[in-house]
């Protein structure tokens, strides 16, 4: 066996992180841009005048509370998965999913409340914007609930535990993001009527 030895400098390992997590952050960046577009369009349009002012549905306060609580249960799920407390994880994810669905129902009922105040989807853009923004956010919540269910199934298959937490982490990040996004949108709509 011939053996020749040469000494070369060692190439540095470049920085890097989990590509999927990184991709999720980029995706959230593009979601932020969509809503940034609508909220800035809202401001630009409002500055033009001919803008109907109306009370936001009071149900938005309740749905905001629901989504805030769901963020808590999501984090509970994450922490218990980290401690390998899988029974609690399953419970916490289930509660989070249910809260997500409750949020969606609440948003739907809030639209009914808007209709009762005679604010329709078709009409002055001030109302249409609220419908579009809450509808599109709801669509993202649907995707979040689907993600939660995927993680729930994975937990039942013992594919989520302290040594294999990245999917759980991504789900947690996404859910917190959707929560923060709604709170931002709600505060935005409250401040800019």
């Amino acid at each position, binding site marked *: *066996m*011939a*053996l*020749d*030895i*040469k*000494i*070369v*400098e*060692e*190439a*540095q*390992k*470049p*920085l*890097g*992180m*989990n*590509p*999927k997590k*990184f*991709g999720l952050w*980029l*995706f959230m*960046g*593009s*979601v932020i*841009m*969509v*809503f*940034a*577009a*609508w909220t800035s*369009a809202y401001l*630009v*349009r409002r500055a*033009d005048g*001919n*803008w*109907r002012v109306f009370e936001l549905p009071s149900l938005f306060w309740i749905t905001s509370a629901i989504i805030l609580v769901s963020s808590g249960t999501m984090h509970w799920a994450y922490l218990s998965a980290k401690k390998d407390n899988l029974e609690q994880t399953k419970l916490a994810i289930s509660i989070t999913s249910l809260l997500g669905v409750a949020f969606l129902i609440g948003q739907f009922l809030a639209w009914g409340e808007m209709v009762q105040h005679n604010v329709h*989807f*078709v*009409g*002055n*853009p001030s109302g*249409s*914007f609220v419908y*579009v923004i809450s509808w*599109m956010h709801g669509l993202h919540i649907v995707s979040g609930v689907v993600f939660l269910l995927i993680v729930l199934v994975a937990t039942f298959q013992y594919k989520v535990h302290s040594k294999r937490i990245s999917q759980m982490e991504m789900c947690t990040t996404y859910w917190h993001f959707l929560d923060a996004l709604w709170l931002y949108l709600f505060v935005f709509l409250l401040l800019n009527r």
Partner: protein
Amino acid sequence: MATTDIHLHQDVHHHDDHEDHEHHEGNFWTTYIFSQDHKVIAKQFLITGIFWALLGGTLSVIFRLQLGFPDMNLDWLKPVLGGWITPEGKLDPEFYLALVTMHGTIMVFFVLTAGLSGTFSNFLIPLQIGARDMASGFMNMLSYWFFFLSSVIMFISLFLETGPAGGGWTIYPPLSALPQAIKGSGLGMTMWLVAMVFFIVSSLLGSINYITTVINMRTKGMSFTRMPLTIWAFFFTAIIGILSFPVLFAAALLLVFDRSFGTSFYLSDIYIGGEALAHEGGSPILFQHLFWFLGHPEVYIVLLPALGLSSEIIATNSRKPIFGYKAMIGSMLFIAILSFIVWAHHMFVTGMNPFLGSIFMLLTLIIAVPSAVKIFNYVTTLWKGNIHFTPGMLFSIGLVSFFLTGGITGIFLGNSAIDIQLHDTYFVVAHFHLVMGSASFFGMMAGVYHWFPKFFGRMVNPTLGYIHFWLTFVGVYMVFFPMHYIGIAGFPRRYYSWTNFETFSGFADLNMLVSVAAIVTLSAQFIFLFNFFYSMFRGRLAPANPWESTTLEWTTPRNPGHGNWVGEIPSVYRWPYDYSKPGAKEDYIPQNIPYSETPESNLPHENELIKLETLNGDGSIVVEGSKH
């Protein structure tokens, strides 16, 4: 830390290489159609892009016939265009608008965004940073198939009885929002919007993948400052895409609601046939703000990849390091940032506040600075280089030429006062076709010629390449240079005809010249097409490194399989532009050659690098076996 590279003369295959990549023997469907291999996906984007480019070019020649020869009898086009030729043998005016719209849409989005970024980002990012594939091959496949779906929808819309979208590629409401406005705002517009939604999804999937791959999948030693400029360009392009395409999505969705559900985001106070429409309270200017927030960055989504490709090609074929590597990165970064804060220069004449106009004017003119830096660096890279005039090199130099001549007119158009005269005239058409259309197209062609050996393992015929270049280069200038005069004379774009008024007949001869040049330029592309497909199957077999280039893609086998490298991925020890380094044996040193192997050409600080790494190591020597 030093690595001792021990060469054992026996077969030492690395386990990690066989784990998940290399030679998936798939069937026809998984290898060529639903492939997750970035190289196959790149070729799919390329072929689809070429198809669209031909179609877009043909549409432009049809409306150039109308503009150059307004009295021509077009009955001979009846077999193809059918009812769009009127009984008098003329082009239907509404179809003319549809042609202009589809030409713009196809060229901007389907050719120069998907065809350019989709092809070269997919192909070169993993090969040049030393990765086996994209971060997510599945997402990459989805990206192509969403683009394909979008293409199919857009293509079908060409055959609608009411014609494809006709409101211009910028689809300004209220024209695009009211189906009763023109034929092209009916079903054609709906399909345009649906196709674009899929296109945006495709573009976002692609961009997320590109950024993730560049950041996380680089091989050992490939630090950011050792990345080829192509990768930097694709990286910035993808970031711009992620930030701007969602805004187009937001704008398009509101337009869909206005069209189909009766909301009033963009519509207000419109009377049709004396009847007021129900829409009230909207603002069409709002759409323009949202659209151009995408629309302007889109220009750089189209241009930056072409600039990246030409940087690499010009350095390689000048046999010189690129002049001002960091300045090139800096200027691209600066362009990328500026691209987001200049959108209102498309809207100077919408009645915007003149003070706001001068702010946008200032920001717009600042773009001239990084652009000039880039042109200066291209020229200084060429300066006293040992230039090899390959077809790819010629197309890159052509890009620099168009970028300069088209960029200069941008300084005029960026002035909010001069824009009042020049807005929406042929001056604008000449400007953006040179600086963005032709420059990017030439960058794409340069890329195809330069990386053809890596795409298909064969060489293209250079003679046909030269003929293609000169016909196209001269043709493009013949088409767009006269348009400056036509534009300064005040001819508005998108008009079907000027000959109805004697005053405007003055430039009929110039328009005729433009049209003839356009036909010649389009015909020249068939030379390329023949060369492309002939060389794909019958071309001379390519050597491993035909252009004696330094980057990693040339260390792969002639026809790299899925996984790109047989055995270990090479590590990177130096920047990608070590051309004609004083003292070196050859006039290029590939990136995967360590400094310790080139003592004759190392600069003092590079020798320091070796020493530091040897001394700083904690005495341990990493033994690395490799088969050779």
